[in-house]
């Protein structure tokens, strides 16, 4: 009898033990890749920017490259314009994508399908093509100017090569992902819970504020952190559409490395960018954890 029980109990543990190496292997691959491709270069970059080797071959602890970054007017302006662009893009993305997602979730028929296709389209357009389309339409003597000229109106002040250039490009580029994430969040809001709110006297705005928004706050966080992280370290669009000075950290790093030939400076900029991204990440994790706890 006891033998039988023992056997019955030991069977599941045996199979679990048998599965464990495969499970570990499956986890090990991504962990290894992350260590190899992300953590190791990050540690390497950080150590190379703080353990500097001088001309005599002595290596010593040295924060001078950071001191330079945070005292250099130009570097600080670039950091500021990067943060500004990221913030403005995040706000614009929310303001644009939330209504689109709400519309897609709560209307029926053929039209929403077309709107959805249109909203997802930018995902399939490479940034380079997007940038050149932007220049052809909004650039100097672009399509808008030609149309305005045709009806006798003055030309627009083109956003091309101003900080608004990258903003417009990056917002456009990030609309699909943001809409999709918000839409999946809205999918978890049951129709009946909304109808119940209307039933007890909530109008459309109250339903949105008290019922829908709390349910999708996590999705908003996910959507924003995805786009914020991407925008903060973006390269192509700011490089092609943005002003030469101040420039976003992406093109700034590239220029410091290639044109100025200052690898330590570029690495310092990268570490600073990395630090900000970690801050965003921590904020995101904390908010999600807090929402979960509620």
């Amino acid at each position, binding site marked *: 009898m006891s033998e039988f029980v023992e056997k019955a109990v030991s069977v599941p543990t045996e199979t679990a033990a048998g599965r464990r190496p495969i499970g570990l292997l499956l986890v090990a691959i991504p962990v290894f890749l992350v260590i190899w491709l992300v953590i190791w270069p990050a540690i390497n970059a950080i150590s190379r920017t703080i353990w500097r080797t001088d001309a005599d071959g002595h290596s010593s602890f040295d924060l001078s490259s950071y001191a330079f970054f945070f005292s250099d007017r130009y570097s600080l302006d670039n950091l500021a314009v990067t943060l500004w662009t990221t913030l403005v893009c995040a706000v614009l993305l929310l303001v644009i994508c939330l209504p689109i997602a709400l519309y897609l979730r709560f209307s029926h028929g053929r039209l929403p399908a077309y709107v959805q296709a249109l909203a997802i389209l930018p995902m399939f357009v490479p940034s380079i093509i997007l940038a050149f389309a932007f220049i052809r339409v909004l650039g100097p003597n672009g399509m808008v100017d030609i149309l305005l000229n045709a009806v006798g109106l003055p030309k627009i002040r083109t956003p091309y090569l101003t900080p608004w250039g990258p903003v417009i490009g990056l917002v456009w580029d990030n609309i699909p992902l943001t809409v999709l994430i918000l839409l999946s969040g809205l999918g978890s809001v049951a129709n009946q819970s909304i109808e119940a709110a209307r039933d*007890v006297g909530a109008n459309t705005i109250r339903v949105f504020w008290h019922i829908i928004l709390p349910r999708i706050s996590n999705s908003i966080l996910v959507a924003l952190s995805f786009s914020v992280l991407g925008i903060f370290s973006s390269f192509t669009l700011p490089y092609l559409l943005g002003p030469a000075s101040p420039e976003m950290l992406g093109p700034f790093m590239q220029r410091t490395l290639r044109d100025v030939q200052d690898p330590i400076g570029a690495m310092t900029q990268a570490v600073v960018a990395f630090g900000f991204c970690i801050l965003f990440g921590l904020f995101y994790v904390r908010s999600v954890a807090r929402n979960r706890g509620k």
Partner: protein
Amino acid sequence: MSVLHIAEVTKTFSGGTHAVNSFSLDVADGELVCLLGPSGSGKSTLLRMVGGFEQPTSGRITIDGEDVTHLPPERRPTGMVFQSHALWTHMNVFKNLAFGLKLRRMPAGEIREKVEAVLELVGLAGYGDRMTNQLSGGQQQRVALARSLVLEPKILLLDEPFASLDQHLRERLREEVRDIQQRLGITTLFVTHGQDEALSMADRIVVMANGKTEQMGRPDVVYRDPKTPFVAGFIGTMNLVEGEVTNGQFTRSDFTFPLPIADGPATLAIRPEALDLTASDTPKATVHRVTDYGSHGLVDLDLADGTRLKSMVAHPDLFRTGQGVDLKPRAVAAYRNNQQIFRS
């Protein structure tokens, strides 16, 4: 004092479905009316039009004489209890109940009093701090009911609120709802497709088919005297036998029964409890199966052509499979062209 008046209401969906077809109903003050019907008969659509979630294609709905046909749900004096998934999972029970009162700008102290009183009423006193996902299915539906009741609606609407619960719980909640409804004297429209639910709790039932009223009346009257073969078959268990009447004699296979109506096809309806079985040298039917329920028995019978009938008997041990029996209906109704043409 609240009366609901539904006049000639029609709902045609964009696809062309006539979900509700020129439907009229008056619900008296404090009355509980059950809408009963098969799936797709338009019960939910009708209820949703009363609650304001669907706009009628035509017709009028008034509550206490006030036309509410075109008011949005938030401005109607109705409270709706949905089938499921309607609680706000990001709020605890107290907040779920207080939400509507807060929208009405009621002072916090008064809100607390009211919510606690209603929680007490539905048997959930002290559950205010629970999150909704920490409640059982039955408790969740009680919260949903309480959330509607706390606003003291003039009309309470329930759309199969217990459909997702098990039999026992359903029966208990059904009784509780009936108690609360009578205590508060609240005018109620209740959708169900469980006929036992309708028969046990309604003041009046409305049997719907294809968006129309098939029959309405007191549950016992509808049960005893169904006006159409559809209602006869839908409410309770009923033997519906199609046959021919010639010279005042209804015939189906070997089974005959005197029926004083004009010659032609007819459907004979016999309740199992009104169909007596006797031993006979010239049997009309064969016993197929005997089921003993303790308090009574149910005998399944086959006519010679295979038509299956059911009979409720007091002593099931008197019958066994394969036995030949004679049929003695005590009360029948006959239908022709969907109309009742005879009743005994």
